[in-house]
């Protein structure tokens, strides 16, 4: 099922999408597959898999550490792409790759997207690639049938938003705040305003998913209620992995339980109000 179809199916059910992020190869490649399965089986609608990079400038300490652990495990970009294929043998939900642009640039655009396509990657997110630099990237990704998911942030002007909407496919990734990735306890009112503002331009055109700082079920619920079609949660999953690195069962159980809680928060309590 494509990213687009997934959002439509969920909408019809009265649900927002839970998009769960983990780093490929953190802490070990074989564990990534097990963690991915746990995430999917307990309610994730879309999986976001990171390819580690030595210099993750958009990430806070939690995901920086995951980058380091994954690199230490010896994982390569190609191996992460192959994992997508492995996970797809069991589950058909969309899988999106997140990485920094140098990883793709170094592999070569054609080569990277050809391999991504063969591994059944559905979409790709590159936090350090603004639309100004993305012409070839978009062309080649789309040629290989891969969605290019772009980001909009609190500092994005209306003019830029229009341009970004021309480039993004699958969904639009809203960066909820000024800052790097990492769990925050509170949800800022400005995040709600941002969702409301951006959704007035995107309604009926493309789904919106909100990430950066989203870690608690109540935050997920609030952003879905504000009009987002999905919530992206990363650092809290990575934290669970980090905290139970030597206890696989505990890790997988905690992942399952947490995913479940987050997923429940994406479901509209009053489904009827949605279909109106």
């Amino acid at each position, binding site marked *: 099922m494509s990213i687009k179809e997934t959002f439509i199916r969920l909408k019809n059910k009265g649900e927002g999408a839970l998009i769960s992020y983990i780093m490929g190869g953190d802490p070990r490649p074989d564990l990534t597959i097990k963690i991915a399965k746990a995430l999917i089986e307990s309610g994730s609608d879309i999986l976001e898999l990171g390819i580690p*990079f*030595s*210099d*993750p*400038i*958009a990430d*806070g*300490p939690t995901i*920086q550490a995951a980058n380091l652990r994954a*690199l230490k495990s010896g994982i*390569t*970009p190609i191996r992460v792409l192959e994992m997508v294929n492995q996970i797809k043998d069991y589950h058909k939900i969309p899988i999106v790759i997140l990485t920094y*642009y*140098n*990883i*793709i*640039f*170094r*592999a070569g655009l054609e080569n990277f997207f050809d391999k991504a396509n063969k591994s059944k990657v559905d979409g790709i997110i590159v*936090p*350090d*690639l*603004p639309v*100004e*630099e993305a012409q070839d990237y978009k062309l080649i990704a789309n040629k290989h049938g891969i969605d290019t998911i*772009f*980001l*909009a*942030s*609190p*500092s*994005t*002007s209306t003019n*830029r938003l229009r341009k*970004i909407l021309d480039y993004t496919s699958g969904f639009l990734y809203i*960066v909820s705040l*000024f*800052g*790097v990735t990492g769990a925050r306890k509170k949800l800022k009112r400005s995040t709600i305003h941002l969702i409301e503002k951006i959704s007035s331009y995107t309604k009926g055109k493309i789904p919106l998913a909100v990430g950066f700082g989203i870690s608690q079920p109540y935050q997920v619920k609030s952003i879905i209620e504000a009009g987002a079609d999905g919530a992206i949660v990363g650092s809290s999953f990575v934290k669970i992995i980090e905290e139970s690195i030597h206890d696989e069962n505990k890790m997988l159980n905690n992942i399952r339980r947490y995913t479940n809680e987050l997923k429940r928060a994406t479901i509209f309590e009053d489904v009827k109000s949605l279909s109106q």
Partner: protein
Amino acid sequence: MKEIKKYNYPIDGKYGKYGGRFVPETLMSAILDLEKEYLRLKDDQEFKRELDYYLSEYAGRPTPLYFAKNLTKKVGGAKIYLKREDLLHGGAHKINNTLGQALIAKRMGKTRVIAETGAGQHGVATAMACAVLGLKAEIYMGEEDIVRQKLNVFRMNLLGAKVHPVNSGSRTLKDAINEALRDWVTNVKTTYYLIGSVVGPHPYPMIVRDFQSVIGKEIKSQIMKKENRMPDALIACVGGGSNAIGTFYPFLDERKVELYGVEAGGYGIESGKHAASICAGNEGILHGMLTYFLQNEHGQICTTHSISAGLDYPGVGPEHSFLKSIGRAKYVSVTDDKAVKAFLELSKTEGIIPALEPSHSLAFAIELAGSMKKDDLIVVTLSGRGDKDVQVVADYLKVKI
């Protein structure tokens, strides 16, 4: 040289295919605003007057172009001139840029300035410019570099700046830039990021080049006065490459003037422990720019080694990559060993203790001069003084002080 001219103002920040703006969306509006503001200020007479005032009255410009008679005699080849940026306030060329950018920050109404630093020279120069202009300075510095350059950390504190130790990644300049970018993404509304070299997303490489070009402009008029002709070769060291671009830029159209950028060869290129990004790297994208980086086959950026913290960076300014691609400038590397030898040589023959960064340029200049004719002219940019490196050199020579 029609091709070069147009990069006076690189459209979309591209020097050929190099450069660009590879930054998170959150920073795009800030760098677009900065570009707009800079293009306005660049030709603003009041801004120019203010900058000129601080450069001459506060920083000590113009700096001399000194004929190194003793060194020339000893080498027995071309005449060697030294552009004495080491005599500037703070002891390095960095102040040319920090005064310019701090004035921009002020005009833009930003009250907080952040910067990264490797050797600490840019941190010190930022702290000075901010102190004199009434801005708040916070400096990111790798823990590894803090150990190597303790003196500069204390200097920054004396100047009223706050130093944030960076313990991520390799704990050097590259990681200090990462951390400064993370701060900027968080505080972009109030904060000006004062980048210290011709690196980063457009418009930074252009802005820093323009402010550092005062070096080359002065060389041009000074050598005309002294020798009544253009030099045959210009030599400058390249980490990010700001003193080198500042030296080269006003000479790009003088096609007979050969330009040499000298990178840090560390233990030698073949050892893999060096910081010679142009000589031994590949094209890649980091810190907002497409340029040469030291990286592995998968695109992971390498940790670098150089005896001089100021050259210890795995990338290089995009305009250098461009100048290499069209063959206008040549890039070479010099090892730690040779740099230290040149450091000692200049100290003894001319009574000038150079920083370890330009000691690399000097080592190459001594070699080159020896192969040239007696009436040929070489200018070496002496980008900083060596006081900060005395301990490092003593350790290297296993001397206890």
